[in-house]
């Protein structure tokens, strides 16, 4: 039995948009409703993610604003913020509510605007992103988010021999996948040489190791297991794991193992009665190339220490043993913070329905999504599968 099922999914193109957040969210939400064949008036609750609208646009209490915009004023609405894991956390709470019988049909999604359209330059946005680091014990060092994952990745390189060239292979793979995704921020392939020539953001990361600032929205319609059969193309939610880790990162036992991801994955696999070996592909949180390496290991998809080698050898390519980020990932698909988590679930839904077109993973029946927040201190792992 599934915990719940996704019966509709949609997203805006991730990229640069010059529209207010409610209009971006409206596009994704109405698309997901149309996909499910559900009317706004049938939705019982909204689980909504937005990470930084207060900081970027002085826009908070967005839950009722977007609910009003999509014809759902009145229903209970809750906004989540857990840094980059914002909408996956909204999804987890929605799954619990649907499974527990609180609601039968809910809308889950998120929106974010991070591009210069909000009026902030790179330094301002870099400071806003850094707000997820510890205010007293990390931000005063001048650490940035590329810097946080650089700290993890350099230690991984030191312990396991991971190389900058291997990291470049992650970027090349994800840009290649993104080029096949019409909703992706970047539609252009790149090369290892090009990636290794980019300017350094926070060593070892060069420009091409970093995901872009994106605008966008994503949404899914989630229903109870009982109701799912009355829809055209339900995709089951087998498990959702959610764990946290110590902040600040210096107090984590071994920062680069990203323990929260391991704990959340163990929960998700157990709920779905499966294991890493049962996954046909994965969408992981590659905010930086090194983050994909760590995630591939934390999810048990690649042996510990081998994440970089696996990427370079094509083991995580679309035609490899375990395709990672067929959508292009955050790296190429884009990373509108609050929309990223449910954006991954849109990709899982699309692939598991066999609707992913050129980037389709043939015969995919079960997949995992990994969405992290901050220095991976929040991680949500979701297993979805073709309805049995």
């Amino acid at each position, binding site marked *: 039995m599934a915990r719940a099922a996704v019966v509709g*999914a949609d997203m805006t193109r991730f990229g640069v948009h010059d529209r207010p957040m*409610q*209009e971006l969210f*409206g596009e994704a*939400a109405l698309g997901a409703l*149309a996909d499910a*064949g559900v009317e706004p008036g049938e939705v019982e609750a909204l689980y909504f993610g937005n990470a930084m609208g207060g900081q970027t646009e002085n826009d908070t209490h967005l839950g009722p604003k977007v609910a009003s*915009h999509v*014809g759902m004023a009145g229903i209970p609405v809750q906004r989540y913020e857990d840094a980059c894991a914002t909408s996956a956390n909204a999804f987890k709470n929605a799954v619990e509510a649907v499974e527990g019988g609180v609601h039968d049909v809910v809308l889950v999604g998120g929106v974010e605007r991070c591009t210069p359209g909000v009026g902030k330059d790179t330094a301002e946005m870099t400071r806003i992103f850094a707000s997820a680091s510890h205010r007293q014990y990390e931000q005063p060092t001048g650490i940035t988010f590329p810097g946080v994952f650089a700290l993890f990745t350099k230690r991984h390189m030191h312990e396991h021999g991971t190389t900058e060239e291997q990291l470049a292979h992650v970027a090349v793979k994800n840009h290649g996948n993104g080029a096949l995704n019409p909703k992706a921020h970047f539609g252009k392939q790149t090369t290892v040489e090009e990636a290794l020539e980019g300017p350094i953001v926070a060593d070892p990361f060069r420009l091409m190791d970093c995901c872009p600032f994106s605008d966008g929205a994503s949404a899914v319609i989630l229903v109870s297991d009982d109701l799912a059969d009355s829809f*055209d193309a339900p995709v089951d939610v087998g498990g959702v794991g959610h764990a946290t880790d110590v902040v600040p990162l210096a107090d984590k036992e071994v920062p680069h193992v990203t323990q929260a991801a391991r704990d959340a994955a163990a929960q998700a696999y157990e709920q779905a009665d499966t294991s890493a070996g049962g996954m046909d592909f994965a969408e992981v949180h590659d905010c930086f190339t090194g983050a994909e390496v760590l995630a591939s290991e934390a999810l048990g998809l690649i042996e510990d220490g081998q994440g970089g080698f696996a990427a370079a050898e094509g083991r995580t390519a679309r035609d490899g043993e375990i395709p990672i980020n067929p959508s292009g990932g955050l790296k190429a698909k884009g990373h509108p913070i609050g929309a990223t988590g449910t954006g991954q679930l849109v990709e899982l839904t699309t692939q598991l329905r066999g609707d992913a077109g050129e980037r389709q993973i043939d015969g995919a029946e079960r997949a995992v999504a990994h969405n992290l927040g901050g220095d991976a201190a929040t991680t949500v792992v979701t297993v979805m599968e073709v309805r049995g």
Partner: protein
Amino acid sequence: MTDRGSGRASGIDADRLTHEAWSEAVREGDLRGQRCGDCDAVQGTPKAACPHCGSTALETVELSTEGVVYTETTVNVPPLGVDERGYQVAVVDLGDARLMARLEGERAEIGDRVVLSGYDEDDDGYVTPRFERQ
């Protein structure tokens, strides 16, 4: 199920009133709203679906530029970005719909008739209608 492979933005209706079109109208001295094709409710600002009944059958309509003050206040402690104090903000009833707006000139009370007299623009370029007593 819609054809999701096409990259078509299924949530976008090209005719639906947007913030951009609403703002453009305000700049030109016009007010645009939306009438719901199902429940007939009229909204003064753009939405993707009717907040009252959930219908997506929204028709863009021209709103009256005259109305009466539904409620009002005078703000003496302004937010950062507003360089005056003692300005009047009102909800104006235009008959079909209501709008929040600035009132300029002679102070208006609830029930007073007002007419669109211009617009204000904030630091981020967002516009808001301005009314004055008739």
